[in-house]
């Protein structure tokens, strides 16, 4: 069983501890949640997993591949895709072009072919266009293919970003606050998509602020506070854990 594994993951900025000894398992075919109050250190974990921030201690594995110190672009090749907290599309490029960029991992034509416009390159472009269109159809975005991505509604932009991440055909997908700023109808539509990922065998790591949503989606939840894991388990277990309740009510020491 392939697994996204975090072992004793730590991050220190000078003397300040941003996260310490974080151990997590994200198995394939399931949705795993990571929650925590504001400032709990969720973003730090995301940045370390995705290679945007150097790791101070511990390891990160995607399946058998050690990605602890891999540069950002190799992490995608190891099989981990991501979406961004505030949607990041290439806003002037068309929806189709946005998804095609996600297919980069599968492009194999030689540099010479690309430079001189050899038939191999043209074939590849045609093939990638077809694959991107198929993905757009899957996400119900076909009619927007030629529009600039920046002009779409918020919900549609989020779907384009999902399609782009899926284009890489990852084994794992990391969703960084995917339903922030969405209404219930929009987030329900996304919930179905996330379940679809898991059903297709992909491991989903859902990082969310909205506890209710995570409880509804996930089989296993990790709770982060002050850079450390304070609880983990099934939604029922975690939501009734007094430590978690204290952390969320913001009681701190004197509550």
């Amino acid at each position, binding site marked *: 069983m392939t697994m996204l594994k975090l072992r004793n993951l730590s991050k220190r900025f000078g003397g300040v501890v941003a996260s310490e000894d974080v151990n997590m398992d994200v198995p394939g075919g399931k949705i795993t949640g990571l929650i925590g109050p504001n400032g709990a250190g969720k973003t730090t974990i995301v940045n370390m997993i*995705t*290679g*945007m921030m150097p790791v101070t201690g511990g390891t990160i594995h995607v399946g058998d591949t050690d990605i602890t110190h891999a*540069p*950002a*672009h*190799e*992490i*995608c*090749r190891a099989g981990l*895709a*991501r979406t*961004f907290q505030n949607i*990041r*599309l*290439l*806003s*002037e*490029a068309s929806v189709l*072009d946005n998804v*095609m*960029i*996600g297919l*980069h*991992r599968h*492009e194999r*034509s030689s*540099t010479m*072919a*690309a*430079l*001189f*416009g050899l038939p191999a*390159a*043209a074939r*590849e*472009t045609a093939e*990638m266009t077809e694959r991107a269109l198929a993905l757009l159809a899957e996400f119900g975005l076909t*009619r*927007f293919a*030629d*529009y600039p991505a920046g*002009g*779409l*509604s918020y919900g*549609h932009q989020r779907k384009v970003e999902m399609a*782009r991440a899926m284009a*890489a055909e990852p084994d794992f997908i990391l969703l960084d606050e995917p339903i922030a700023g969405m209404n219930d109808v929009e987030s329900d539509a996304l919930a179905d998509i996330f379940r679809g990922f898991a059903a297709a065998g992909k491991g989903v790591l859902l990082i969310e602020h909205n506890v209710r949503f995570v409880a509804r989606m996930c089989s296993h939840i990790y709770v982060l506070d002050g850079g450390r894991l304070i609880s983990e388990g099934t939604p029922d277990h975690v939501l009734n854990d007094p430590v978690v309740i204290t952390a969320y009510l913001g009681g701190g020491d004197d509550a």
Partner: protein
Amino acid sequence: MSGFIAGYIPLLDLYLIHLGLAFSQYIVLRAGVFSLATAALAGIGAYTAGIFAVKLGMHPVLGVLAGTVMGMAAAIVLSIPLARLRGVYQAIATVAFIQIFVSLNIYAEPITGGALGLNGIPKTVGTGILAIAAIAATYVIWAVERGRLGRAFNAIRQDEAVAASLGISIVRHQMLAFALSGALAGLFGALEAYHAYALDPNQFGFHLLITVLSYVILGGRNSVIGPVVGTAILIILPELARFLAEYRMVIYGAMLIIVINYMPKGIADTVRDAVRAGRLKRRGEDPA
């Protein structure tokens, strides 16, 4: 009639050479590198070719080849330090590179002819060869744009974090863009050497940097038509307004300010985007 055309041949030749240099500038900007090194890379190509001809007496084909390779090699070497820098710092580093090229060139008088320049290069390149080279360059840029490299360049230019998250190696692609930029600059620099009889170090300095940058900014830096249009306008315009000849650089300057402020995508890209938007509008769907 033929006399009339002949009168415009030098202008056409200038256009063809500068189009190649404009593409050299274009391709690095396209890949998100703020390099202004094209002028110096062209100088390296030109001087390599010139020295091959004057000092070594080599065949022009060899000279052009050597100029292209030298331009490319210099660009690859330059890309290594630039990969560690961003935005403004890349611009400053490449301007420094141009200064180093010009001053070393003046200093190395026994090889380069120093401030007096390199003279007596046999003229072996005419309009025909220039046209072939310019068409070939246009084709390569067009091919790059349509394929996987163009897609990767677009992603890197617009958002490096996104590009990396999708598995695109920023360093590798920017180095490739640089190599292509250097090869183009070297090639057209070398052609200039065999076209102009003489070379002068200052001809590859700050002034050329501004000229080439203007072509790309005016025309547009996101489609192959941009440099084609931009270079044409800036070369023809002063001819149409000869009474303004003395104020030619005022026109260039004012245009840079106006275009970057009010039409930041450049003429060709703005027109292209407007056409596309119009087509989508006629289809009558609302994306939002």
